[in-house]
Every structure is written in C-alpha cells, then in structure tokens.
C-alpha cells in the first residue's frame, strides 16, 4: 500500500478524532486518578462508640487529672480533666502524648532474662522464681542488707510496698533519686524539723522571687504552674526571675536578673543581709528564730554584704538592694527555690538561703507565702511481720546517704557491697551525673532486677526485667507533691487493658514476697495490688473510687512553725564547679523534653526546636560575645573534665556571657529511632560534686571549653 500525503493526513486526523471521541482516554485518566488515590497502606481508624474515662497521669510529679477518650475499648486521646483540683482542664504535652507510651512497640513486652549480651523472653512464673531464688540465697547467707533498691520517689502505695518489702527482707538500703519533693523535704528538715515539706502559694502571692525555678518549664506540678502564671498576669502580681539564662520563665517574668551560675545562694544571702540591715524583716517572726540570729546577722553583714557579693554574683549591689527591698515590702511575697524543674543537682545551702528569705519576711503559713506542712500521710498498712534476719539486717548501717554514694562505694570496693539491686521507675544510668560510672557500678552488681516499661539505659544493664504497666493500664494512688499548695491524692485507673504481658509493679512485688514465703509472705497477704490499695487507703478509698480524687488538705496550714537558722549561721561553704576552664556548662530544663528517666514521646520530640536538636546533634546556647570564632549552627567540640561532645552552636543573646547551656533529656541510647540516639546526654558531661554535710550532689554545672570542630 502506498502511503501518500493525502492518506497520511487522513489517517492522522482519523486517529486524532478517534482518540478524542473514544472513552479510553477518559477511562485511563479516571483509572489513574483512582489508582493514585488507592492507599491501602494508609490506616483507616476503626470507628466505634465514644466514651470518656477520667484518670490521673503519673508521668511526672504533677499528678494531673486526665480524661481519656475511647473508641470502643481503644483509648485514642488524652486530655486534661476539667474541674480537677490540680489542673482543671489543662494538660501538658507529655500527658497528651501518653498513648504513644502505651502503644509503643519498643516497650518491654514480656519478662526478660539476660543471656550474654541479649535478652530472652521468659514467663512471669520463671522470672519471679528466679528473683526469689536469688533473694533467698542472699538471706540464707545472713546478709539481707546486700539487697539494694532505687525508686523514683517515696510517695504512694507502690513505693510503700517496696519499702515494706525491704523492711521485712531486712535491708535498710532503699534509696530514691533526687526530686523537687526530696529537696523540699531536706530544706524543711534543716530549717523547720523533720517530717515536713514546703509548698508555695503561687496562686495568691503578689511578688514571686524565683531563684531559677522554671515555674513554666516543668517545675513542681507543671500545669498548675502554667495556671498560676496565667493568673499572675491577671492579678498583676510580679515575678522576678534570677538565673543565668533567659529561660521561658525569665522571658515571661516582669524582670530577669542574670546571675553567675552557682552563686544563687550568695545572692540570696546578700538579700537576707539587706533585709536584716534595713530592718525590713517581720520582727515578730524573727524574734522566735532559733539557732543564733545574731550570729547569722553578723556573718551576713560581714561576708555577704551586697557590695561584696556584686562581683561574685554578677548582680549590681544597688540591684540586690532594690530587689531585696521590693521583696520585703511586698504584701504577699514568696521566694521560690529549686532550679529548673527543681529535681536537678543543687546545694542545700542554696535551698536554705532562699527559704530564709521567706522566714525573714514572715510569710510562712500566710496567704501567698510558703506553706510548711507535714508530709502527706494517708496510707495505713498493717504491722509488718519481721523475722530475726530482718530485724538484724535493719540495724546495719546504710551503704550511703544517697544513691550516688552507694554507686561510688560499689565502684571503689573490691568486695561486693551489693549482691542484688531492684530498680523501680528510675533510670539512674541516665539521670545521675557521671552516667558512665553508674553503668560501671551496675555492671559490678551480680543481680539487677529492673521494674520497667521500657528497655531504658538502666534496664539494659539488668539481669531480669519485669515489665510493668504504663499509667494508662494500671491502678495506683497518685499523691500530689512538689511544692503544690494543696494536698490531693488522685487515682490512676486502668483505662486500657494491658497491651503486652505486663503487670502492676505492686503485683510484681507482692508475687516476689509470696515466693519468698515465711514472714515476708505473711506481710504481703493481699490477693492482688488492687485489694491492697483498697485496704491501705481506708480513709479516702470512697472518695478515690467514686470521685477519682481525694483532697487531703487545702488552704493555709495552721499552727506555728519553728525556724532554726543554725545551718546558715555556721556559714557552709559554697559548692564550686568542677574543673579549671573559663566557661561554665549548665543544664537547661525545657518543657518539651522530660529530664527524668523516661524519654520524650515521638510527638514531644517533634515539637523540639531546631535550635535545641538538629538531626542527631545537640545544639548548645552561647552568647555571641563568648563564642569567638564559632558560627551560628556550626559544629563545635565541647570539652569538660568528664568528657567531650560534638555539638552545634546556637548564638543566643539570652545567654549570660561565659556560660554554655545544653538541654537536658536528649542523648538516650536505646532502640527507638523516634526518640533515641538524638543529641548528647548532658549528665555524661557533668560529674557529681558532693556538698559536704548534706551529702547532696550539688553540681549545678561544670567548667568547660568549646572550640570549632
């Protein structure tokens, strides 16, 4: 066939016309749009009946009421519970993201036993009998004190069960990690006597003088802090914030007073000196002070006069004078202590010095002041049944006053100091200073049992991991603490069935006690933790089970409070930072990253600014004046006496010159790519500095140098 011009054009036009009228083109377009919109891998959330259950969040000491939205049996959202006495509807980002902890596939799903460098899954029966057998050996060798325990806190019935277990076992060696609450108790014990704690009436105070307390950065009960701060704005009450860095609290305050890190105690004492010199104190209150007021006054005027402290603290002496005067003349002033979240390292000298300001102006147990009240007590346990091994064991000396001293002792000793260690809800291998030394110490303990929901840094060192429920799956009483003016107990309820083969930690300890038989088992006769909780909270169980919350006390505590100033009158030494370099590295508490042992949720990490975490690098804050030769966002090498880290630099005018700030809560190293292996753990770069006398780790920072990498 001959193809001429005419037939070629005819065919071509015919083809064009044919394609144009044919449905094939339209069909293909339609198909392709259907195909490109076919996403079988995109999940379709299952629908169901909506219900709401109220509970309490126990991720941090805040103890906020939460409302959990469920679709069928499935919790889908956590929100703040309106009307709850602590948070009244608001919630923090960690609580809201709580379901990411619940459903996290990297949770510990079954009991695990260490086998060489890996873990193998075992049954609960096997795990409990392994633990019981080891503990029985320790008891049989008549050295029950060689069982040690570390918990996050000493509050609520689960902690009480652990303590009860240690008592009936015969070991005095149970420790808690430092928290704001333990710092408050230590301060109260020094100034007012043992068994008490301190709270701050921030909702009513008209002048808040905060020595670095991150009132809107997770200090105390965080949501309550946000609310008190918002109400402060409405009441036009003043907040003066003293710290080396323009934190969010400082930025939100009426005045930011930059102070050289580690000199907060000196500044507080200089202010005490002003108040005493200008006779601005409450003479009625001061007349009742014990422990040598005149001696203290003489010391303050001689050593801590503002003119002498201006150089030390970096605050002008006229400013010290003005602020102290404003504070003393305010109607309802309160001085708040506990740097950052309040759980970090700080010296007793600093805590007591700041609290002495409260005592001097006579705001103790007054509206808008500091409340000194007995520690919350509502648990009524039956008497313990003790055998002779237990009674003997309890008479032996503790291995140390605080957990870090025990670890130091273990590292120093050639003989085993501790045969077995229980770790509950704590991650000392991450949160304590000099984390490497803590890991080393754990390695020297023959048998470590971790009660944990996650395979965190400490759980990884354990020989047995007993997986526990998250707060969404368990029943537990959650007492408020951490400086909150009212004392309430909330009830955490299992709003979700257990996702994995986990148990309530209370049940785990009851099972271990029962397996040990004898007097120990007799002291744990409950069928389950749920039974135990009901029977040990007789006074408040009705409120707890019906309302979800029981108010133990609110309002201003009554009764007079003794004040003893002998601790300060003896002029304790100010703790100095370790090292000789010219810069000081300080930790930064950021609301979006928890500093405690639990890593942030993926959502929380997502909200973290790229001026804090970039890729897998921590970004440190430094004043442009200090950062000679360093570029913004450029790499740098940060060196302290404890170690070196590669970091990025954020040139920040909100940082005092001479200071480097690094955020807490990064640098976890476990298997969860969304939250772990990001940035540096600042606790690896700071070593403990023990305050003589109190035994507290008071390393507020460490000397450091930084150079371009």
């Amino acid at each position, binding site marked *: 066939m001959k193809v001429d011009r005419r037939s070629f054009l005819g065919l071509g036009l015919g083809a064009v016309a044919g394609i144009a009228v044919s449905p094939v083109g339209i069909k293909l377009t339609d198909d392709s749009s259907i195909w490109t919109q076919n996403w079988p891998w995109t999940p379709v959330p299952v629908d169901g009946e909506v219900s709401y259950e109220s509970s309490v969040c126990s991720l941090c000491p805040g103890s906020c009421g939460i409302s959990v939205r469920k679709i069928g049996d*499935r919790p889908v959202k956590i929100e703040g519970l309106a009307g709850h006495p602590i948070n009244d509807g608001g919630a923090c980002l960690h609580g*809201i*993201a709580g379901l*990411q902890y619940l459903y996290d596939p990297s949770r510990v799903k079954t009991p695990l036993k260490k086998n060489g460098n890996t873990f193998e899954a075992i049954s609960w029966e096997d795990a409990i009998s392994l633990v019981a057998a080891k503990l029985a050996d320790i008891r049989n060798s008549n050295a029950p004190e060689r069982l040690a325990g570390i918990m996050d806190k000493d509050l609520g019935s689960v902690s009480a069960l652990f303590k009860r277990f240690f008592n009936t076992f015969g070991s005095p060696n149970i420790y808690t990690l430092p928290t704001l609450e333990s710092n408050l108790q230590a301060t109260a014990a020094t100034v007012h006597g043992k068994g008490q704690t301190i709270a701050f009436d921030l909702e009513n105070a008209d002048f808040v003088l905060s020595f670095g307390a991150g009132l809107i950065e997770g200090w105390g009960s965080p949501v309550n802090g946000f609310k008190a701060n918002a109400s402060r704005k409405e009441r036009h009450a003043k907040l003066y914030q003293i710290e080396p860095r323009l934190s969010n609290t400082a930025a939100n305050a009426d005045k930011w007073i930059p102070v050289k890190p580690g000199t907060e105690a000196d500044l507080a004492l200089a202010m005490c000196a002003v108040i005493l010199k200008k006779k601005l104190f409450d003479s009625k209150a001061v007349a009742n002070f014990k422990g040598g007021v005149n001696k203290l006054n003489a010391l303050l005027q001689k050593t801590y006069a503002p003119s002498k402290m201006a150089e030390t603290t970096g605050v002008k002496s006229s400013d010290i004078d003005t602020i102290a005067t404003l504070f003393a003349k305010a109607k309802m002033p309160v001085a708040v202590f506990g740097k950052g979240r309040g759980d970090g390292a700080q010296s007793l000298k600093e805590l007591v010095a700041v609290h002495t300001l409260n005592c001097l102006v006579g705001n103790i147990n007054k509206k808008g002041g500091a409340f000194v009240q007995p520690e919350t007590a509502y648990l009524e346990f039956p008497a313990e049944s003790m055998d002779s091994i237990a009674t003997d064991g309890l008479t032996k000396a503790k291995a140390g006053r605080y957990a870090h001293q025990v670890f130091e002792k273990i590292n120093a000793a050639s003989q085993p100091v501790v045969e077995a260690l229980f770790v509950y809800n704590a991650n000392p291998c991450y949160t304590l200073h000099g984390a490497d030394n803590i890991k080393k110490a754990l390695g020297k303990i023959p048998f470590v049992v971790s009660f944990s929901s996650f395979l965190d840094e400490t759980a990884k060192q354990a020989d047995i991991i007993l997986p526990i429920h998250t707060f969404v799956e368990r029943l537990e009483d959650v007492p408020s603490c951490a400086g909150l003016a009212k004392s309430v107990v909330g009830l955490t309820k299992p709003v979700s069935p257990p*996702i994995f083969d986990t148990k309530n930690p209370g049940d785990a300890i009851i099972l271990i006690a029962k397996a040990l038989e004898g007097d120990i088992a007799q002291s744990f006769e409950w069928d389950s933790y749920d039974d135990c909780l009901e029977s040990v909270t007789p006074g408040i169980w009705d409120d707890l089970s019906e309302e979800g919350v029981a108010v133990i006390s609110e309002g201003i505590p009554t009764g007079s409070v003794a004040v003893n100033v002998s601790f300060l009158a003896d002029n304790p030494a100010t703790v100095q930072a370790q090292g000789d370099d010219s810069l000081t590295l300080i930790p930064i508490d950021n609301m979006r990253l928890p500093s405690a042992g639990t890593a942030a949720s993926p*959502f*929380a990490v*997502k909200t973290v*600014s790229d001026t804090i975490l970039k890729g897998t690098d921590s970004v440190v804050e430094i004043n442009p004046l200090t950062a000679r030769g360093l570029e913004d966002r450029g790499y740098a090498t940060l060196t302290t006496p404890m170690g070196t880290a590669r970091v990025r630099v954020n040139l920040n*005018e909100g940082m005092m010159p001479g200071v480097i700030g690094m955020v807490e809560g990064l640098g976890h190293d476990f298997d969860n790519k969304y939250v772990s292996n990001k940035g540096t753990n600042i606790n690896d770069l700071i070593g403990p500095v023990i305050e003589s006398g109190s035994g507290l780790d008071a390393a507020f920072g460490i000397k450091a140098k930084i150079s371009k990498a």
Partner: protein
Amino acid sequence: MKQENNKAHKFGMVIDLDKCTGCGSCMVSCMSENNVPFKEDESNKKDSITWMRVYKITNGKSFPDTEIVYLPRPCQHCGGKGDHGHSPCVSVCPATATDYGYDTGIVSQIYTRCFGCRYCMGACPYHARYFNWWDPKWPEGMENYLSPNVSPRMRGVVEKCSFCYHRYQAARDKAYVDGRDDIEEQEYQTACTTACPAGAIVFGDLNNPAHAVHQIVKPDPHPDPRNKHIVGKSRNPNVFRLLERLGTNPKVYYLSEREWVRKAGDNYLEGEWDEIKNHHGSSSHD
C-alpha cells in the same frame, strides 16, 4: 424543628501572647487529635508537619535586654480581601480541594481532591500548609490510637489546620438531636484551645457578641478606612493580626501588651509603625 440556622458563624481565635509559655501542649494536642504522623527526624522544620506551630520571636536586642515571646500559629482561616471568602489558598486551588465555608468562615481541606500541586502552599503567607512528601507510617501497634474522626492523609497531598472541624460537626449533630437550632460556645472548642494549660487561647464565634473571642477582639464592623480590603480589624489596642495589611483578613488574632510584639506581626518601613500603631479600626478616625 424550625430552620432558623441561617446566621453565618465566623469562627475565630485570639491568642494571648503574654500568657503563652511556649510549652507545646497545643502542638501535641493538635497532632494527637488530627492523626498527624511523625517520622524519625523531625528537626528539619521545612518538612515537619505541624498544623499548629509555635514560633519563638525575639526583640533582637543583645544581652541582657533580650526578650522572647512565643507565637502559636494555626491556619489563619483567612477571609480574603474584603472578607469575601477569596482566601489566598482558595483562590489558587485548581481542584477545589480547599474551600471557604461561608457559614463558618473555616477554610477546608479535602485530601482526596488534592493532587499535590502545592499552589496553595505558595499562596499562603503564613506557611500554615504542609505537604506530605512521604506516606505516613505509624510504628506497629501505634495506629491503635488513631481517631476515626479525621482521615489519615497520604503521600502527595497538602494538609493544614481545620479548626478541628470534626468537633464542630459533632457539636452540630448533638444540637440537632437535642432539637436546638445552634450550638453553645463551649460545645465547639478546638483541641489546642482546650489543651492550653495557660488558658492563652480563646476560641468562638467572632460574629456573636456574647462570645469571649468577640468581646476581646471587638471586631470593627466597618472596613478599615485606610484600606477597604481590611475587615474586622480589632478595636482593642493590644490586639493585632499577622501581616494584617495584606488584606487577607485572618480569623486568628493575637494579644500582647508589649509594643515590640505587636510590631513583630508585620513588616514595617521606617517610620511606618509610629503612624499605624495607634490606629485601631474606623472609630479611631472619628
């Protein structure tokens, strides 16, 4: 039931920047309410999907006079020039995947209509829109917390804040069942509003004088005499909108007592701010 539900709502928000603490609750509440996914590295903020994003702003001064403020930025739900519903993004969408709700003032986003041209992202002056460069992936088991009220999105579509429209639908359904014509102020609140622990976010109907948001904003009923495209300018001297002079007419207002913060809401030529800072709607010309 009488059908009197013809009055148009104009849902809007006012955020008190003096109360905002930058805590991030609004961001996480939004993510968990709206099934927003997460990925391994979210530190590249250009591809990190956050319908609500909290920006940190400084006054640019050096130590120790530096100040910081946090500015939460949801979709501004612009009414467009003259508030006629021609929002910057709506006007450019070739697929009608984003549209203006004349009964609510809410700018919608319909994922299945979107084919990912991203014109809207270019048009949005507030960077409130995000593109799904990848399919969302939830770690095994985590899809169990997904809410059935909001469809998870897929690769290749744009998404943004909807003022929690599903909450409006639920409130309206409930009102219908109860035989009511309209919803109460507290029945429809966005997830960020209810989560804010500082109470910095107030949400409601800007057209309803009984609503807190109207009382704080006091929207000017007349167009701005300096620029007739600007409608609903606040008569509260401490309230401003972002890039207000563009005439996009956002329904998100900001509140601050600090002048430098209000000034940070737009770009001003030298001297311009002093001329404009005391101008609070048509009445200030009387």
